[in-house]
């Protein structure tokens, strides 16, 4: 079909509508939909042809005359794709707006048709004046479509838009005519052949006019008003279709200007991206926020357009990926906003009753944030790599910063959706649902296509991910069935793949899979369907196993993002977890961006299509230390090293009973795994004379100390454990950074031990919290008799954790001491020495205030935690005992494996005694000796004191009184008050304040920026003119 | 005749500028509208001088004619509150 039919059908149908009787609205509507469908079909057929045959672009002449003497159009792959996007957006917008279109009659439908037609025209035309005409059509059509809204402010928004459009079109016209005068043609290709050198000023006017159609920050107040007040069905068009068409127009125009103008486009783009995202932060109106986000995304794509000189043949892949991700997601979100009655972001909570709509939101938010497996992810990957390769690091930094801010507000919004309360009922009608569903489908399909085009592994073909996504399809099943499937899947994966890995990876793999399976046992306690839990959890596990599987940087990063997202959803399920989940995802994504940058930098110096992780070892100065630093920082956000830790306590504490052990016992290990890989491949690096590994050593030690110190002041049992995790991760980091054989062994031992006892403790405490209905330890007490099994688990856990012989924790300490004997830096040890006894404090607090002391009246009737929660704890007790007695079972192989990297200082595993060059340790002997002594004395006591009977609770000597209130008699609150007096200065929330200040700063910046937009259309005109002047000055100064 | 054209042009241009200033800065809206119409009308004469009869016709019919009427239609509707 000739591409001209796109225009002819659109126009013809619009004219035809005028012939119909005003009363025949159904017919008119049917015609409209038919026309849009046909237009979509035409675009689709072209797309199919181009994809199938790989044919080049086709020129379409009008008036039977060749260009430049007549207007010509061009239909190529890009044009076909874009027009398809535009037409489909139009079609679904028409479906979405069905009601209002029918109400307003044929005129409204004609306007919509013409708008879509004109957008296609913008994409197709190769004539610059023709472009102007189509743009004017868009302006006027927009002015009309804005009015379809029932928001009474839409009129003023439309007027503001018209005011600025007038300025724009005048500048454009002047530019065009002087361009014509200089080149003697109006044909874009003809102008491009001559180049803009001779009419730079005129080209500037053309350029700036087209740029203005992209609503660049800060000259975009009018656009925001439209987004806010227009009908969401149209806003989708305005965002997705108009934005795409205008971007393509700019791309065409830049062919005239040539590379000299790329920096200008880049500068405008990046300022827009960052600025609009910052301003979006303080928004509370959903549609306005979407508007800001649209503008930001457009800015990002504009940046990409400005960077086309370095993107090579990846240009379309990147720009397209970003564009489609943005267009589909934004259209989807706008359509979705129609389900929500109020315009506050928090009102979206009403959607949470509808899992499918939540899924749609998740899809869109993930697309916008550039998360896998959506096109934006692949595009972001390639873009960052290209920028790093071209050494445009500042730009790279700003892009990632903006993306982080964007992810921040999107996920904050998602938090509102899931966590806030709403009384509104969501009514779904077919016209509302169809477009959203289409956008969701399109999003996933695009993800598949982009994965396919990426030349890397298509994430949507990766089995673990598919398995996780498969849980979406069986959400209707009862929780226990899904749980069985999850356990089966994890175990099966382990069985299938365990031979493929070296001992180190195998340990991590076992923890990720088998460890996960054990924790899933606890999930049997949940009833109902537990919607959302299994896809999230399995997404995280998919990410984890893919992380182990990954051999190249892409696979690694993709896995990293998957596990981050999965765990975010998991964490968000907690009752009060909204802010914590948010800070988790923001920190995690920030860390992920650092990792991405590091990989990009690494790939830049050793160019290869895929960058093997192992090739990190081959990096040399001056890049290597930077890569090391970025990767280390990225991984340390996951292990919650001090300074980057503030997300962890809330996230782990507020999570559900069986989620806490997953995110603490398992997820943290992903960061450690990364650090292992990093140190194994890169070794020592120094930057400006600072030994980075040494820095890690200090950070590890500080983390251990401060994590533990903060843990002792917690009143909340799960928070205590969470802070303890921070400290423990500090230990492990410290061990790794020792960079000697035993240090690594110790870190690995921590990996195992921490998984076991932290999972166990979280389950135990979770079970208690479930029964008592509180996590505040001072409100518990005396539960030992009621929950003996939980008590035993906790007891074993804290003995193991504190490192007291004979349990497995001691092995870790022993290796630690042997390891530091070899270390070159001694000062950080001091911190570690201090943190050891401090751990003792909080562990005692944990067990004492929960299980010992005075039982509260309201707890007298509670029962042991559910069997499903206790069972894994008992498994852990068994594991701990096993590891305590025979650490060699696991460690021996790892010891040998580590010797490949650090041959000195391996342990000797002869017999039952483990020998290092400094000392020795015989776990079995210790166990036997201790047991014998203990039993002997115990027997003696039983003998002399055999008739002891248990007395009642208050049968104690208490200042010659018998206390009668357990609350006053249970010493638990502010347990370590003196310590706070003495050491409290160390736990001032400096870090929290720092990040709080950063956030405040961003918000303040956003708020100040918002004041620019005072709502006065005339002021917006000032903005635009000032913007032109600034860009002019920028270009002149370039 | 032809040597008069530049002077005529200058006169027309001057008229347009003055009329435009009146349209912009004048107190009364109706006079502003009329002044704008005048600018348009003079412009169409200028177009004739610049050998563009098609444009001249269009400008006269549309720019100065229809547009001015449209303005007056609306002005007539909103006159009472016009204090801005």
């Amino acid at each position: 079909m000739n591409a001209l039919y796109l225009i002819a059908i659109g126009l013809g149908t619009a004219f035809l509508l005028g012939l119909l009787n005003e009363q025949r609205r159904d017919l008119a509507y049917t015609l409209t939909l038919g026309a849009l469908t046909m237009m979509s079909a035409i675009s689709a057929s072209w797309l199919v042809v181009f994809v199938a045959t790989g044919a080049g672009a086709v020129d379409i002449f009008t008036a039977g005359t060749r260009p430049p003497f007549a207007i010509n159009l061009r239909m190529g792959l890009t044009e076909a794709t874009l027009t398809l996007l535009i037409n489909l957006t139009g079609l679904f917008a028409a479906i979405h707006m069905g009601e209002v279109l029918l109400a307003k009659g044929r005129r409204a439908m004609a306007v919509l048709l013409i708008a879509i037609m004109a957008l296609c025209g913008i994409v197709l035309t190769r004539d610059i004046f023709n472009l102007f005409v189509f743009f004017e059509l868009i302006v006027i059509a927009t002015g009309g479509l804005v009015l379809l809204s029932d928001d009474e402010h839409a009129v003023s928004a439309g007027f503001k838009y018209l005011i600025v459009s007038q300025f724009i079109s005048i500048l454009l016209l002047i530019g065009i005519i002087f361009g014509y005068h200089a080149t003697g043609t109006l044909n874009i290709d003809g102008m491009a052949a001559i180049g803009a050198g001779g009419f730079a000023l005129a080209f500037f006017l053309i350029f700036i006019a087209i740029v203005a159609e992209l609503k660049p920050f800060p000259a975009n107040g009018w656009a925001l008003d439209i987004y806010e007040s227009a009908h969401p069905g149209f806003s989708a068009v305005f965002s997705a279709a108009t934005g795409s068409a205008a971007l393509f127009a700019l791309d065409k125009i830049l062919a005239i200007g040539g590379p000299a103008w790329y920096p200008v486009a880049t500068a405008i783009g990046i300022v827009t991206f960052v600025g609009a995202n910052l301003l979006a932060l303080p928004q509370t109106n959903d549609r306005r926020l979407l508007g800001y986000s649209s503008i930001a995304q457009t800015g990002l794509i504009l940046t990409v357009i400005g960077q086309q000189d370095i993107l090579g043949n990846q240009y379309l892949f990147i720009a397209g990926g970003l564009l489609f991700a943005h267009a589909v997601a934004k259209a989807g979100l706008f359509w979705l906003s129609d389900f929500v009655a109020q315009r506050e972001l928090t009102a979206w909570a009403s959607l949470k009753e509808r899992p499918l709509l939540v899924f749609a939101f998740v899809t869109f938010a993930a697309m916008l944030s550039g998360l896998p497996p959506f096109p934006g992810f692949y595009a972001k990957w390639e873009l960052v790599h290209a920028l790093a390769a071209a050494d445009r690091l500042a730009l790279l930094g700003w892009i990632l910063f903006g993306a982080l801010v964007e992810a921040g507000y999107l996920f904050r919004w998602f938090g509102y959706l899931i966590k806030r309360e709403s009384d509104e009922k969501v009514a779904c009608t077919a016209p509302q649902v169809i477009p959203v569903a289409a956008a969701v489908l399109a999003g996933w399909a695009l993800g598949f296509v982009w994965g396919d085009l990426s030349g890397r592994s298509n994430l949507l073909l990766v089995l673990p991910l598919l398995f996780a996504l498969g849980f979406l399809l069986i959400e209707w099943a009862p929780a226990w069935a899904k749980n069985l499937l999850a356990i089966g899947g994890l175990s099966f994966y382990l069985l299938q793949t365990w031979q493929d890995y070296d001992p180190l990876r195998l340990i991590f793999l076992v923890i990720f899979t088998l460890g996960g399976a054990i924790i899933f046992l606890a999930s049997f306690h949940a009833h109902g369907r537990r919607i959302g839990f299994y896809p999230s959890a399995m997404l995280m596990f998919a990410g984890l196993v893919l992380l182990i599987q990954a051999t190249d940087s892409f696979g690694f990063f993709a896995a990293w993002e998957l596990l981050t997202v999965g765990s975010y959803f998991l964490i968000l399920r907690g009752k009060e977890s909204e802010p914590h989940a948010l800070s988790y995802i923001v920190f995690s994504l920030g860390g992920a961006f650092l990792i991405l940058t590091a990989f990009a930098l690494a790939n830049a110096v050793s160019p290869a299509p895929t960058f093997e992780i192992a090739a990190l070892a081959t990096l040399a100065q001056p890049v290597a230390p930077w890569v090391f630093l970025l990767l280390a920082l990225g991984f340390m956000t996951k292990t919650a090293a001090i300074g980057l830790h503030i997300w962890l306590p809330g996230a782990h504490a507020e999570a559900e009973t069986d989620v806490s052990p997953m995110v603490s016992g398992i997820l943290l290990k992903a960061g450690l795994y990364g650090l292992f890989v990093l140190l194994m491949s890169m070794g020592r690096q120094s930057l400006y004379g600072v030994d980075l590994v040494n820095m890690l050593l200090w950070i590890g030690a500080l983390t251990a100390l401060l994590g533990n110190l903060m843990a002792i002041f917690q009143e909340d049992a799960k928070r205590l454990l969470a802070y303890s995790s921070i400290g423990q991760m500090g230990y492990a980091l410290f061990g790794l950074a020792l960079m000697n054989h035993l240090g690594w062994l110790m870190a690995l031992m921590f990996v195992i031990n921490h998984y076991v006892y932290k999972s166990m403790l979280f389950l135990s405490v979770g079970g208690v919290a479930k029964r008592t209905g509180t996590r505040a330890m001072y409100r518990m007490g005396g539960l030992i008799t009621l929950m003996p099994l939980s008590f035993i688990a906790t007891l074993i856990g804290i003995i193991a954790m504190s490192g007291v012989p004979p349990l497995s924790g001691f092995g870790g300490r022993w290796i630690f001491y042997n390891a530091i004997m070899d270390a070159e830096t001694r000062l950080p040890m001091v911190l570690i020495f201090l943190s050891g006894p401090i751990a003792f404090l909080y562990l005692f607090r944990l067990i004492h205030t929960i299980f010992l002391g005075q039982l509260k009246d309201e707890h007298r009737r509670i029962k042991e935690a559910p069997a499903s929660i206790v069972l894994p704890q008992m498994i852990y007790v068994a594991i701990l005992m096993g590891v305590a007695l025979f650490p060699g079972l696991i460690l021996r192989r790892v010891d040998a494996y580590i010797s490949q990297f650090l041959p000195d200082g391996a342990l000797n595993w002869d017999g039952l005694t483990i020998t290092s060059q400094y000392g020795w340790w015989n776990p079995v002997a210790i166990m036997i000796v201790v047991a014998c002594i203990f039993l002997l004395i115990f027997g003696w006591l039983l003998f002399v004191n055999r008739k002891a009977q248990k007395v009642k609770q208050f049968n104690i000597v208490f200042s010659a009184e018998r206390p009668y209130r357990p609350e006053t008699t249970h010493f638990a609150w502010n347990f370590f008050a003196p310590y706070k007096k003495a050491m409290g200065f160390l736990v001032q929330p400096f870090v929290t304040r720092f990040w709080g200040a950063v956030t405040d700063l961003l918000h303040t910046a956003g708020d100040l920026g918002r004041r620019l937009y005072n709502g006065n259309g005339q002021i917006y005109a000032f903005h635009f003119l000032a913007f032109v002047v600034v860009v002019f000055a920028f270009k002149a100064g370039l | 005749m032809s040597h008069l054209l530049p002077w005529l042009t200058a006169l027309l241009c001057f008229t347009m500028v003055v009329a435009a200033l009146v349209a912009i800065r004048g107190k009364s809206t109706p006079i502003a509208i009329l002044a704008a119409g005048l600018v348009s009308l003079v412009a169409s004469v200028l177009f004739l001088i610049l050998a563009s009869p098609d444009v001249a016709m269009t400008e006269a019919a549309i720019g100065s004619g229809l547009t001015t009427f449209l303005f007056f239609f609306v002005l007539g509707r909103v006159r009472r509150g016009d204090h801005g």
Partner: protein
Amino acid sequence: MAYLAMATGFLLILIGFYGALTNRNLLRMIVAFTIADTGVNIVIVAIGYMRGRTAPILDSTVSAAAAVQRIIDPVPQALVLTAIVIGLGVTALMLAYAYKLYEKKRTLDIARFTELKG
């Protein structure tokens, strides 16, 4: 002559812009835009003007063969035709909007329509 016309055109554009930026009355803003539009049209036509040539219409005085030497550039004129019509369309639209805005608030002051902001 063309210079003079063009300068006038530019001046009209600037005057129009100034008016649009400083008049708070909606109608006066629209008036200012029409002046700027007229200015643009003059600039475009002036660009195409060539001294000593005639309008691009073939008739008894200008034969098809001599046209190349006799007529001025027709393209800008064609463009101006389009621009004028588009200008009218936009003006009409803005007027309708102004009416609608007035209907809502009984004022034409642009500074009063600032509910949407931030």
